[in-house]
């Protein structure tokens, strides 16, 4: 139904001519809106719609209203490129996407080639969640900006935290067997070796992506290894089922994860009863956020019934608005030149910088653990009564990973 509506909207946009297209600033939101990834894609869409409303309430961009075009890419790179073309045909000069690094790579490549072929009609791509390092290293592009911390920044933050945790002695790595999981595993091995050479890696597992129904065999293996901590990049059901199996076996290790806070994650953790044992690494936390962010958080929760998952989307849209204002232009190239190197206030507090060399945003990172709400904490997750507690804050400067990017500038 939604797809039909979008198709009609696109068709109407084409037939109505350019007059209608000039009235709004269109941002193509290209993420899964059907299939397995839809639950996540819907949350992203709500976030961007909320942000567009905010900008519009303040007068829009140079007097024009922001309009979000929802486009379903089914988490598929080919489909994403088709949808990006659709967005451009409908008059969008800006697109945003987050779910899936393979999709992000395809979009970055598409946008770069499109801009080469169509000088003067450039399109800019804002990435709010795809974390593959390649996007800001050997595959970097002038037309791609990333607000999420890359996989290596997250691992740098995590290992920096582990540096101050002498109780961690034996670490087990378990990851999904695809590019992201394999990359994370490599980063963990390298960084732990550099920062904590005394830590023993007692296991290094890759399991098939989203195909395991019962993780008990894996947990038995982790237990047998004597690990006191587990590092994993698992997400979705692979995270929930793994934690469930661990709780069943009475495993007492600490879990250092990227995505324990994902959709359904808090519900699954609450079920396991593993209080204050599961950590994640993020770029913002509601309970320690500055007052302005907490007000927005309350309002957002009231409106949609979910917490703000993507503080980075707020950074993205606010910096976008600021770049447009500073450039006094809606031309993507002018906006991109203003975004490069921009230092801005981060949604949850502190300052962040968009590095000019590779268009990667650097901001303070937080290590949090999940458990029953502590006194003074306002926000729980998914109605569980449990919430996140910040355990460590890693300053933006301490996650300054190098880049191999040799950017071609227009």
């Amino acid at each position, binding site marked *: 139904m939604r797809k039909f509506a979008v198709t009609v909207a696109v068709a109407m946009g084409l037939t109505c001519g350019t007059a209608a297209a000039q009235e709004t600033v269109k941002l193509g939101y290209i993420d899964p809106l059907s299939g397995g990834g*839809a639950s996540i894609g819907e949350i992203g869409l709500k976030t961007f719609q909320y942000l567009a409303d905010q900008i519009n309430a303040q007068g829009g961009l140079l007097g024009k209203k922001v309009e979000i075009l929802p486009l379903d890419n089914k988490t598929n790179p080919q489909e994403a490129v088709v949808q990006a073309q659709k967005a451009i045909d409908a008059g969008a000069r800006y697109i945003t996407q987050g779910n899936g690094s393979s999709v992000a790579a395809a979009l970055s490549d598409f946008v770069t080639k499109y801009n080469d072929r169509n000088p003067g009609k450039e399109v800019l791509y804002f990435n709010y969640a795809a974390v593959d390092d390649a996007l800001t290293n050997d595959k970097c592009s002038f037309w791609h900006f990333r607000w999420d911390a890359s996989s290596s920044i997250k691992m740098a933050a995590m290992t920096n935290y582990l540096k101050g945790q002498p109780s961690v002695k034996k670490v087990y790595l378990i990851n999904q067997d695809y590019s992201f999981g394999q990359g994370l595993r490599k980063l963990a091995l390298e960084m732990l070796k550099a920062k904590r050479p005394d830590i023993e890696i007692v296991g290094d597992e890759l399991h*098939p992506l989203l195909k395991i129904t019962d993780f*008990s065999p894996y947990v038995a293996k982790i237990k047998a290894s004597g690990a006191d901590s587990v590092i994993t990049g698992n997400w979705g059901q692979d995270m929930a089922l793994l934690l469930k199996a661990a709780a*069943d*076996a*009475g495993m007492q290790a600490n879990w250092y994860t990227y995505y324990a806070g994902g959709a359904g994650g808090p*519900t699954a953790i609450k079920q396991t009863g593993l209080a204050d044992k599961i950590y994640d690494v993020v770029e913002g936390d509601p309970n320690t956020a500055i007052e302005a962010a907490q007000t927005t958080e309350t309002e957002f929760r009231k409106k949609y019934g979910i917490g703000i998952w993507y503080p980075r989307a707020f950074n993205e849209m606010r910096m976008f608005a600021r770049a447009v204002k500073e450039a006094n232009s809606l031309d993507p190239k002018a906006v991109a030149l203003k975004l490069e190197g921009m230092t801005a206030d981060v949604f949850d507090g502190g300052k962040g910088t968009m590095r000019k060399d590779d268009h990667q945003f650097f901001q303070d990172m937080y290590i949090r653990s999940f458990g029953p709400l502590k006194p003074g904490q306002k926000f729980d997750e998914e109605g569980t009564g449990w919430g996140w507690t910040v355990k460590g804050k890693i300053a933006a400067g301490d996650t300054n990973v190098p880049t191999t990017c040799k950017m071609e500038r227009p």
Partner: protein
Amino acid sequence: MLELITFSTLNGVLYGMLLFMMASGLTLIFSMMGVLNFAHASFYMIGAYFGFEIARRIGFWPGFFVAPLLVGVVGGLIERYGLRQVHRFGHVAELLFTFGLAFVIEELVNMIWGRLPVDYRVPPSLDFVAFRLFDTTYPAYRIFMLATAVAMFVFLLIVLKRTRVGLIIQAALTHPNMVAMLGHNVPRVFMMVFGVGAGLAGLAGVIAGPALVTQPSMAALLGPILFVVIVVGGLGSLGGAFVASLLIGLIQTFAVAINVSLADAIGPSAASLLGELGRAPLAQIAPVLPYLLLVLVLIFRPRGLFGTRES
């Protein structure tokens, strides 16, 4: 090491029994009606969601008894008003019908309960540690799952071997046309078998829901492996399905625990010869092993371990 073996065995047997609860219904339906029911795992999912819905209103135990019955009724109705209408167009139409049905059910579940996992919990009366062995705990709920599966197996065996209904079903397994000639209401037997098969899958869902995760993708996760079980076990053979389920459960569980690769077994030459395949430890290819078994069985023993007929 002993700890790993003990728990791998327990986990393997449990996973095997869970597979069997679904495979038993599937193999009966397949051998009687000739329909490879692609939607069978969907009944497992419906069972979990019905169980969840009843559990949060009345309690786990009413759900445990009522949900499988409801799923059985749903299965019977689908057979009566869906499959039976399609039947006259042949097996391909029936196959496609169940194929589509699986997607319809998944989308319905999506619409009613949402895409996120639901909070289906182990009942407090079973939420304790059954025993502790070498510092690893084994939850009572898993023992309960095992007991339920065994009880169901015994019940099925008695029904099939000792009752008149079982006699007709058994006859229909090998001589479906002859049974119809003798004047039995074969369509009704079909509906009943389909309903009971669905109900058993529903029961598996009710008890697996709290232990695993109750979410719309749970059917798609277990679906394919069921076909492996019934082919390896032999079509229409309940004993075969039982042995094959346990076999696959144990193979998968133990493969995960073993970190040996082909390179370790054959020697370093394997790595250069086979490349990535030579270096991958057995644990990494564990999920593929059942399908490898399926292929091998189809080549070398097409009727399966205990099957009695070729098709």
